[in-house]
């Protein structure tokens, strides 16, 4: 990681990554408890998303698979962007929405939101309440960011995360409503029940959040110099940092409402991509969006095929791979 990649290389990486993502998404459409042949997918796609000859294929692809695969791509992109931004803001590759407790804070809001949403209603309440939970948590975290040492800050985030998860659990078990997802959703998320409605509700929040973070990118980059130095070159860190982490909280909230709490994607994807595209967020954000989408599309495909017709929670797969990766990252950093 001595030489940084030049811009043409970066464009090539992101472009080919996006191509690979599209191919993987088409493959993912075919796989699951009900396997669909490539020919049927082509018929369905060329028939403007309908396959007159085979209504079962039509139903599975339109009502179940397509929102799920799109949800996986959007969820993965969001988690990876949020990870990259938090790592820039907190000046450590160990920052992550899941690890720092943002996801659990969003989970509290999401659980409340699901509880008050009537069956069949547009699920904007879980998205907005989860976003509010995440934003509030981010605002509180930014107060402690400059006062607490980096390692203590991360541990405090882990502790808060556990507490908030416990509160979510108590709420879910006490309310015991069929409208609220099971506790498993808030521990190891899943895209098993993704509908067009929840996908739309999450997307209308995620897209502006991602654009806002991309816009703040050059400012967040400056924080690597230290808050004081960033201020010297013209960034009002005391104003920008709380704004950025609040937007991060909003994005995390929408992602939790969409797919539950999925860890480690935001940690792994930026770490793997930095050697190829560099650390500049204007480049890292689009690159991690594509990378995160690929990771979650693949993970979700595994989640519904490995033990088909049973579902494995998505977060279980990302944690099974991501956990050891984090351990390796910690040991490796201590060594250098």
């Amino acid at each position, binding site marked *: *990681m*001595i*030489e*940084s990649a030049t811009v043409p290389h970066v464009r090539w990486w992101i472009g080919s990554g996006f191509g690979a993502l599209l191919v993987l998404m088409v493959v993912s459409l075919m796989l699951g408890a009900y396997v669909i042949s490539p020919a049927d997918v082509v018929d369905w796609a060329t028939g403007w998303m309908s396959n007159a000859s085979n209504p079962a294929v039509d139903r599975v692809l339109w009502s179940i698979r397509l929102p799920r695969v799109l949800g996986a791509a959007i969820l993965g992109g969001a988690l990876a962007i949020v990870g990259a931004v938090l790592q820039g803001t907190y*000046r450590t590759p160990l920052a992550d929405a899941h690890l720092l407790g943002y996801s659990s804070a969003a989970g509290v809001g999401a659980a409340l939101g699901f509880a008050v949403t009537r069956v069949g209603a547009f699920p904007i309440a879980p998205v907005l309440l989860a976003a509010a939970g995440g934003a509030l948590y981010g605002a509180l975290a930014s107060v402690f960011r400059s006062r607490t040492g980096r390692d203590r800050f991360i541990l405090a985030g882990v502790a808060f995360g556990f507490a908030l998860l416990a509160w979510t659990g108590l709420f879910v078990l006490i309310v015991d409503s069929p409208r609220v997802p099971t506790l498993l959703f808030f521990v190891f998320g899943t895209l098993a029940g993704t509908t067009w409605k929840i996908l739309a509700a999450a997307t209308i929040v995620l897209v502006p959040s991602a654009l806002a973070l991309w*816009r*703040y*990118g*050059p*400012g967040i*980059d*400056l924080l*690597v*110099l*230290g808050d*004081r*130095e960033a*201020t*010297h*070159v*013209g*960034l*009002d860190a005391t104003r920008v940092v709380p704004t950025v982490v609040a937007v991060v909280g909003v994005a995390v909230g929408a992602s939790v409402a969409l797919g539950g709490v999925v860890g480690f994607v935001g940690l792994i994807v930026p770490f793997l991509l*930095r050697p190829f595209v*560099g*650390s*500049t967020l204007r480049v890292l954000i689009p690159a991690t969006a594509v990378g995160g989408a690929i990771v979650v599309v693949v993970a979700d495909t595994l989640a519904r095929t490995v033990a088909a017709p049973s579902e494995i929670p998505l977060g279980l797969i990302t944690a099974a791979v991501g956990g050891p990766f984090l351990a390796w990252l910690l040991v490796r950093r201590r060594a250098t």
Partner: protein
Amino acid sequence: MRVAASDACHDVGVSRLVGPISIELEPGSLLAIVGPNGAGKSTLLRLLGGDLHTTAGTVTFDGADASRMSVRDLARRRSMLGQGQTEDVAFTVDQVIGMGRYAHRNDPLIGPVEDRASVDAAIENLDLVGLENRVVASLSGGERQRTALARVLAQDAPLVLLDEPTTALDIGHQQMVLGIMRGLAAQGRAVVAVLHDLNMAAEFDQVVLLSRGSLSAAGTAEVVLTSERLSNVYGYPIQVVDHPLRPGGLVVPQPNV
């Protein structure tokens, strides 16, 4: 740009860290701030840069109160080298130097055209050619220090404030940085550096000696750096002898045996 501190003070609670201090800097000034540890050198530097607000008195840039300026307006008027650590920075030398241009962007999306020229000139000036695409974390301490200085240069501000700019540098690069500071002053900028090395300070046009937060002496090196005054302020016998090559004296501590 004219910089004026008049009876500037910085208090934290009831304790006065610095002040009252009055200093005027004309374009082209080259000023060294020296003094023992804890004398308030860095605090004074940050007051002059509007980075810390005065709790009494004022710091003005061309008559305008620095403590009322936005972060961005300040960044266009003064650049500042602090003591921030950069050993784990995963950005390249070129990217870090480019960060100095942040306040000059009209829109964060697109920088003005002259950005590249300022960055390239700073790379050239600090002898960083060939290291542009290296990640800062992979550099030596001196190379990182020069990168930080280049970032300050690229900011292109009329007031340049440097906190110990030569500390991590070898004697050759120390002189190179001194030459750069002279060059900046010759361009009409005001340059202020906090220094520990009194012999480096002796090469500056003006020297300010701080002791316990207040001005002990100010003026040319010959006037300020005298054996008696330095021995008093530093609490250790110090002699200033004739320098074979320059008018300002050579500062030597009494041998410690």
